[in-house]
């Protein structure tokens, strides 16, 4: 960890955004939520880490050579394409992009699992994928047009 979460927040407050986003701290967070439930000040640190990850991707400021952002992006692409995440294609795609040599190291295990039917390679596309696209599109449109989608009368769910 380059900076402890406390230092991340201090740096953020000091306006040192690049230092925050380029640190490995943010992408090391594995969302175990210990900090969130323990924080004596009630700060939802895990959520903050997610926010910082998103900021980093948005601004193109992430730790040099980090795999995690690539993984997340690929994950999002696959979910948007299939509606679900096929684990193996995901891992392959990520490693192809970042560390192709490791694929070979994984072959012995993979073969065993494959033979037992535990490694399906073919992604399954949900039938509601167009439904999701519609929702997603409507949301983006509403956000882009800057109109608050709920400002009309009687929309409260």
């Amino acid at each position, binding site marked *: 960890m380059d900076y402890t979460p406390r230092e991340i927040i201090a740096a953020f407050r000091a306006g040192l955004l690049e230092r925050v986003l380029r640190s490995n701290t943010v*992408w*090391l967070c*594995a*969302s*175990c*939520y*210990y900090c*969130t*439930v323990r924080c004596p000040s009630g700060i*939802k640190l*895990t959520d903050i880490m*997610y*926010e910082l*990850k*998103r900021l980093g*991707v948005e601004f193109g400021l992430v730790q040099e050579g*980090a*795999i*995690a*952002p690539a*993984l*997340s*992006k690929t*994950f*999002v692409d696959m*979910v948007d394409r299939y*509606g*679900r*995440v*096929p*684990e193996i294609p995901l*891992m392959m795609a*990520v*490693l192809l992009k970042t560390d192709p040599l490791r694929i070979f190291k994984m072959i012995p*295990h993979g073969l*065993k*699992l494959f033979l*037992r039917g*535990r*490694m*399906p390679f073919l992604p*399954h596309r*949900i*039938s*509601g994928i167009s*439904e*999701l696209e*519609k*929702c*997603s599109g*409507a*949301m983006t449109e*509403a*956000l882009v047009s800057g109109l*608050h*989608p*709920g400002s009309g009368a009687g*929309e*409260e*769910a």
Partner: protein
Amino acid sequence: MGSHLEFSYYPGCSLEGMNKAYDKSARAVSKSLGIDLTELNDWNCCGASAYMSIQELRAHLLSARNLALAEKEKKDLAVVCPACLTTLTKSNRYMGEDPKLRRTIASALRAANLQYLGTVKVRHLLEVIVRDIGEQEVKARVSRPLSDLKVAPYYGCQFTRPFGDFDDKESPVMLDTLLKWLGAEPVNFPLKAKCCGGMLMTTNEPIGLGLVRSLLDCAVQNGAECVATICPLCHITLEAYQGNVNKKFATSYKLPTFYFTQLMGVAFGFSRKELGINEELISSKRILPEQVEAA
């Protein structure tokens, strides 16, 4: 059997892949306990952490579609993956607390003629079994007690953190309780709710392996013969990376891992095949009751 509970069942992506046995065994034991799990039709990814790391609103939207589908069925949602549990619960909660988010998601759902009013509860199968089914009925189903089997009860991060008020957030006990009902002996396992490192295996293997090692070490030190898991990611990490740990740290762990539903199934008298207990990575032959061998 007295109980009849109905849930929409949400297996989650990882149960379609390497964790098929979790799905299989969960369905088998649920059925025998009178829990009717009907798979949520055409469910999608919950919007888990990796998605949340890039797209917040769309992650909530993904959860919301699942919740909306479940609401249509007028059933609560039973899940087996704690990460799905946390993600779905988070969206459920945040939409309840934040009117702006609720409205944003509601209008997006409307584009596909969906709506979500916020009535669905998302629950982990373990919690359903321990709290709703209870000791008496579980024990009544046990035909092959796991006598003296020393099990490390492993919960991982997201069973109770951050939202689970049904059990302790630092040191949960539900799995311990269930294992005792099955006749097994849950060993003292102080790291029971620590991170397995699974999230880091692809992105930062050294740290991930260190975490796996300390878990295995702690389990073995406390006399465990196997580990019971409730999370597909934890399960794969502990199972598939033991070899890497042994290589890296010059250790020789050979600790079998079982989904908690597999151990239930063994105690209920199901066969290896019905529970998907395989031997491809670590042998469990020496620890399971003899009858299971025969089956």
